[in-house]
């Protein structure tokens, strides 16, 4: 059954409500109906807040009736990854440790979305504390791939990608520490962006690896992602790592002709795209063929493309896991069940025994990373692991900086393999970690990267990844818009 609202973009929703073609309440009711029908199978939501969403919708409709001004995102219905704080709305990080935690404050991104009229419908499933690449490590169980329920949705922002692909919300927010937005976006055939480190405030994002992660938008179009980025990005006095200058001007790309976008890109100097050949060739053929096809499409549009490579990529994955685990081991120390948490009577415990009991309730992957992180920071090993990982990180950053003097955009697969079956890799962490091998590069270098749907193989989505230099989101979004128009791929899963 098709519905007029399915696959509606942010612009369509906003204009429709503003021009009184439909009410905000009608659209929210449609979304709630959709969640009720779909989410039993998909399992994208941890918490759904229908009452509040309907109440907010009615408020928007009243404003329209009273001819009051409405926000530029008024009526847009979004899901938020469950590691981003929402005031009085349970924020669990898909963990027992926070299973009953209601934040007393909104994350800066959530505050900005609400100020612009976004209706938050609920909180989305993820790997516990963002640690995982499949959303299988969740206290509520795995999120299924909306294109094939036997397959993983990717992770850790599996709920953010699956909910958007299955039409359970207009768009969503995820967080990306080593590919956690881009991997599920690729697996679920939606657009997912990891912004430049420091472009989007992390205040309210429950920290996993502070120096690597960013909150990123997920949508069914480049334009939706771009609109959301415009709202959530920019300096925040509550996050000392946000940039103070203004990089947050993005064009309304969906309103521009392709020729215009291309000529804008070439305005100052010839725009140049580099295909990371070695990494592309190492990927599964089902994936790499789409990368080559995408390059061909860009060339057809008279954009200069040639091949290049990054030499330091072999250090990327070990460096990433060392730094991320080190930071995680410290960040997660606060979950001791003393100030908030789950029911565990402290009677009869001494400090240390209470800590070890409460903290044994983390999931297996989280525990693994806490152990690794504790180990690499211990005296005697710090220099051997953590310092070396930091060196590798700056080496990668430096090499990419040099590459971006020649290239404006680098292209490679998002994930070197197709989505795999639920349970297939859960017993082999090393195999699982390889899922992130192409995405961690952008996190280590602090640069923006986007995953864009470009095709299907055996009914499973394939995404490609574009990376740009720091704060060059504008270029990233422009090239993505061109490619999106050329491949014209389905981003709305209505198979179940």
């Amino acid at each position: 059954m098709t519905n007029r609202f399915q696959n509606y973009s942010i612009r369509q929703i906003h204009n429709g409500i503003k021009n009184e073609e439909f009410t905000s309440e009608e659209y929210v009711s449609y979304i709630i109906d959709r969640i009720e029908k779909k989410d039993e199978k998909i399992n994208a939501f941890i918490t759904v807040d229908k009452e509040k969403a309907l109440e907010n919708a009615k408020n928007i409709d009243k404003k329209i009736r009273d001819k009051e001004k409405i926000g530029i995102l008024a009526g847009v219905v979004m899901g938020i990854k469950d590691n981003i704080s929402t005031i009085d709305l349970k924020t669990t990080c898909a963990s027992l440790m926070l299973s009953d935690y209601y934040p007393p404050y909104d994350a800066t991104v959530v505050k900005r979305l609400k100020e612009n009229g976004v209706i938050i419908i609920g909180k989305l499933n993820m790997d516990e504390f963002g640690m995982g690449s499949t959303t299988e490590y969740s206290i509520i169980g795995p999120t299924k791939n909306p294109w094939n329920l036997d397959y993983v949705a990717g992770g850790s922002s599996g709920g953010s990608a699956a909910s958007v692909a299955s039409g359970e919300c207009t768009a969503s927010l995820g967080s990306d520490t080593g590919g956690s937005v881009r991997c599920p976006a690729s697996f679920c055939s939606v657009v997912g962006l990891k912004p430049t480190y420091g472009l989007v405030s992390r205040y309210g994002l429950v920290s996993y690896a502070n120096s690597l992660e960013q909150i990123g938008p997920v949508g069914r179009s480049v334009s939706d992602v771009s609109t959301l980025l415009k709202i959530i990005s920019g300096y925040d006095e509550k996050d000392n790592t946000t940039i103070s200058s203004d990089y947050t001007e993005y064009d309304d790309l969906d309103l521009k002709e392709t020729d215009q976008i291309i000529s804008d890109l070439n305005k100052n100097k010839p725009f140049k795209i580099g295909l990371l050949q070695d990494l592309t060739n190492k990927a599964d053929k089902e994936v790499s063929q789409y990368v080559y096809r995408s390059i061909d499409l860009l060339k057809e549009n008279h954009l200069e493309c040639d091949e290049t490579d990054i030499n330091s990529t072999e250090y990327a994955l070990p460096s990433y896991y060392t730094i991320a685990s080190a930071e995680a081991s410290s960040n997660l120390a606060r979950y001791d069940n003393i100030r908030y948490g789950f029911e565990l009577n402290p009677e009869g415990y001494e400090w240390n025994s209470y800590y070890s009991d409460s903290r044994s309730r983390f999931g297996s992957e989280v525990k693994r990373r806490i152990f690794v992180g504790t180990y690499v920071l211990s005296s005697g090993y710090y220099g051997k692991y953590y310092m070396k990982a930091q060196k590798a990180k700056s080496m990668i950053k430096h090499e990419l900086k040099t590459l971006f003097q020649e290239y404006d955009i680098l292209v490679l697969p998002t994930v070197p393999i197709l989505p795999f079956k639920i349970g297939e890799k859960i017993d082999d962490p090393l195999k699982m970690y390889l899922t992130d091998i192409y995405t961690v590069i952008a996190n280590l270098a602090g640069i923006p990267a986007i995953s864009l749907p470009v095709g299907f193989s055996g009914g499973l989505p394939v995404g490609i990844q574009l990376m740009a230099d720091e704060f060059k989101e504008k270029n990233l979004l422009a090239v993505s818009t061109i490619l999106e128009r050329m491949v014209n791929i389905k981003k709305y899963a209505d198979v179940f």
Partner: protein
Amino acid sequence: MSKVRIGLEIHCQLTQLKSKLFCSCIANYRNRDPNTNICPVCYGLPGSLPVLNKKAIEYACMIAIALGCDMPKNLTFARKNYFYPDLPKNFQITQYDSPGSDNNTCIGKSGKLEYISDKTVRIKRIQLEEDPGRLVHEIPASQSGGNSLAYTLIDYNRAGVALVEIVTEPDFNDPKEVRLFLNKITSILEYLNVCNTNLEGSVRCDANVSIGAGKKVEIKNVGSFKDVEKALSYEITRQKTMGLHEIEVKGETRHWDDKRKITKQSRSKEEEEDYRYFPEPDIPIIKIENEFILNLSSKMPELPDQRRKRFIENYQLSEHVSEVLINHKEIADLFEKAVKIYQSPKSISNWIVSDLMGFIDYESLEGKPLNEIIKIDEKHIAELARLVDENKINRTVAKKILTQIVNSGEMPTRIIDRSELTKIGDSKTILEFIEQVFMSEKNAINDANKNPNVANFLLGKVMQKTKGNIDPKKALEIIKKKLEEHK
């Protein structure tokens, strides 16, 4: 005899800041209901991020400059990881340079301070960090029944308050030197106006002691600066006694037992704790520009040593008097303000040092400003000194007046005007007044034999004439005596 070496770790809160080190909660956490001075940041809630208080950097740098430290080019923060319930995040944001690293990222390094003439201590390191919360151990009244009912309450109001740690090299050889050094540090902090050292818990001190080639023993939990000297003396005696009996001193941490006045082994087993320091990812590197240091140095308040020198040169005061005056900033300020009103530094300093200081009990100040305890300011001191210098009153009288000022805050001349001090001191004048009344009230005097009330009647007349400014008892005595003579 083997040499005693003592090193100190002093923690002082930057109490003069408006807010905590990484959030906008109020720095003055005292006298508040438990857990009301907190926010997501200092309470360590998931998703909260530290936001650096720039003023804290400025204050900490002022301390580093005052102690002659090398300043860093790039200031960074680090996480010190350990589990303890007073730490909301189970790590503390502090500063750290890995041992042997030449790279200075702490507020200050390699300073020194001459705390009395010819005695200098090297300052190893100064760092800025956050204070943990406060644990309140509640032991129920029915103490006897074991510890099953004992519990601990946590108050996070203090968590996140800016703390400056000053670490010295083990350059002290005697607990007395430590006391003099601590007095000096207290005075410097007061002069810089970064820490109100009178506030309970605003300055804390840990010490380490070793004798000869013996192991180093850390002493923690010393509640006040006063007790540091006692704790050290106890510990030195303990170690020396062990040496005499050829018992090896263990390298360990001991706690000061405030009630029994001894140091005792810490209950927890002492493993070598691994704090897994690493750079704090949420606070970017802070560049300390030369210009910043120069600017700060130029607007630094005058330090105690500079002030003492100036007092000796400008006011021709003795070394000793200057030292006593400058020791407490408020006293030195009072002196200078009084000298502006009455330009006699000698007598004003004399009044302050030999008389006024006797009224001030610094222990009982508890952080309150001086003028809340004694009601005296520069105007009183200046006037008192002038009255004595001009021979209006003698020194004994002036001292009595001072006692009254301290309690009432009245000006000296007012006290003199209505005071019994003048009446008593001047019985010749009283007699003059009485003789005048005897002259004008002849009839009454003649009635005196028959009427016993005449004496009182005459007193009333005398009081009228003098507007009550005489001692009535004394006057009555004289009147009665004179009436006797008349019989």
